[in-house]
């Protein structure tokens, strides 16, 4: 109980130090408001515009979630297919890697024209960016199994599908979650990118509006909310990880 409070105090403390440094820099260099507002004006802006920012936050959050879930839903089965079938691997892997190098920022404006200003292009960008790490990490996880384990399973008379379901898949879960955690922050970037390029909703739109009107305090306030959102999402995945793989070394308390 006290350990938790203690940890919380440390977190609060570290943020307080960051704010103190920030304020000092602003004061020291007499920064104009439009260049670097101090923490005070930022939080005033946050409080004043909280209703507007909050309503946009739901849109961005929904976009991130949709893009992420779609990415996971496609990436994990695709990775399984690649691992199981060498033929499909040779067919699918090279084009997948090639398309990864295309910056999605370049594609986003095209999506806007093809799919309109609605939610589809933003989810599409979030999906495309989040997709790759999940595939790669799932493949690594599925392939990292000790070959002796497979031998043992075969000697127990297990058919391949049972070996996959009961042994290979659980073995791969830690790696899959690694990919999911990386993908969670990328989904945020993707949703934001989509919103920058064409949106009338969401935190990305708020950022464009704030910067276009030189309202840097609002810009920073939006960024604060954005990072809180990204953090919350990341920790959500971590929580899911804790439930799904409590047995993994990364989840246990370290012995002294």
């Amino acid at each position, binding site marked *: 109980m006290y350990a938790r409070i203690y940890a919380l105090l440390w977190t609060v403390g570290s943020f307080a130090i960051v704010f103190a440094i920030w304020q000092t820099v602003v004061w020291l260099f007499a920064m104009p408001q439009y260049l670097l507002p101090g923490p005070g004006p930022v939080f005033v802006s946050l409080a004043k515009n909280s209703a507007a920012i909050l309503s946009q936050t739901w849109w961005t959050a929904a976009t991130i979630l949709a893009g992420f879930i779609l990415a996971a839903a496609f990436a994990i089965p695709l990775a399984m297919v690649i691992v199981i079938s060498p033929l499909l691997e040779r067919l699918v892997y090279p084009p997948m890697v090639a398309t990864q190098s295309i910056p999605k920022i370049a594609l986003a404006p095209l999506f*806007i024209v093809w799919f309109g200003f609605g939610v589809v292009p933003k989810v599409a960008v979030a999906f495309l960016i989040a997709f790759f790490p999940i595939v790669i990490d799932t493949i690594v996880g599925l392939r990292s199994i000790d070959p002796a384990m497979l031998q043992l399973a075969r000697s127990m008379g297990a058919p391949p599908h049972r070996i996959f379901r009961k042994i290979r898949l659980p073995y791969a879960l830690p790696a899959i979650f690694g990919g999911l955690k990386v993908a969670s922050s990328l989904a945020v970037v993707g949703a934001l990118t989509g919103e920058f390029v064409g949106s009338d909703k969401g935190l990305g739109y708020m950022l464009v509006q704030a910067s*276009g009107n030189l309202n840097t305090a609002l810009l920073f306030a939006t960024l604060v909310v954005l990072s809180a959102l990204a953090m919350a999402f990341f920790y959500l995945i971590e929580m899911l990880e804790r439930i799904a793989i409590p047995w993994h070394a990364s989840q246990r308390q370290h012995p002294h």
Partner: protein
Amino acid sequence: MEKLKDFYAYFCAVGLAAVVALCAFPASAADKATLRLDWVNSGYHAIWYYGLDKGIFQKAGIDLEVLEGKGSAVTAQTVGNGSVTFGTADTAAVMGFIAQGMPIKVVSGYLRQSALAIVFPAEKGWKRFADMGDAKIGYSPGGASSQILPALIKQAGLEGKVQLISMEPAAKMTSILTHRVDGIDSFGFLVVSILEGQGFKAATLPYANEGVNIPGLSLIASDNTIKKSPDLVRRMAMAMNESIVAARHDPEGAIDSLMKRSPTLNRPVVLRTLTLSFDLINPDWGKGKPLGWMSPDVMEKSQDILMKYGGIVKKVSVADYFTNDFVSKN
């Protein structure tokens, strides 16, 4: 158990009544239409929200939904592919697309004076382009003016002297505020008010004074919409112009309507933007003609300029760019 049955029956009755009531409402007689703006909400967009709040569009039988945009190019493209009914976009950009075959047209002028200008600190006192000397000017490639500007620099005899520095649109204002550049190329009315909001007195060198006066924002619609629903297009153009007149008489009220939709905007700044934009509505060549009327002569000259400076490659008939059929009642 009895109570549950009662509740269930009651629920069904209420539900049925609601359905009947909804069906009883006559289908709205108004036409549904969407309008995609050229950018996110700014001072000059107040006319639309004012028109909505004052029932101008409703009276014209239009159920209008106003949507913020992301640049004239995207707005023009989405009008062209039919995903929105109307759009406001920069006329030069629209002409470029039409020359490439996009099936859209200007149905009413709006800011018929060119808004393009070099914005600079007032104390520099520049009066003409030639006064710039070897200044550093910030501009955005791909923007409405990015092809015309180098040509105008050349025309003023400043080639090799003025330095053009490319930057993101958002960076232009901070660059001039921090004196990293001596001036920026942008929409005068928009930028001057924002800079004033930061306590920065700015002045402008309008392109119009150098002989480039291509009309600015216009109302556009797809060829399809014009063909299928000419009456809607007329009502829309008339309602837009009525909203403009109403907003000129009550700029504070117009800004109230705007602030309702975008409460985070800075009120004095957007009010100033709106009033400055009114200066661009009526050019000299529009005297005696209805609001929104586009001059074939001006459009011809504009095409020549754009062709000269690379905005348009293939010449088309001037009538392809616009129509004046909708700016008056007949």
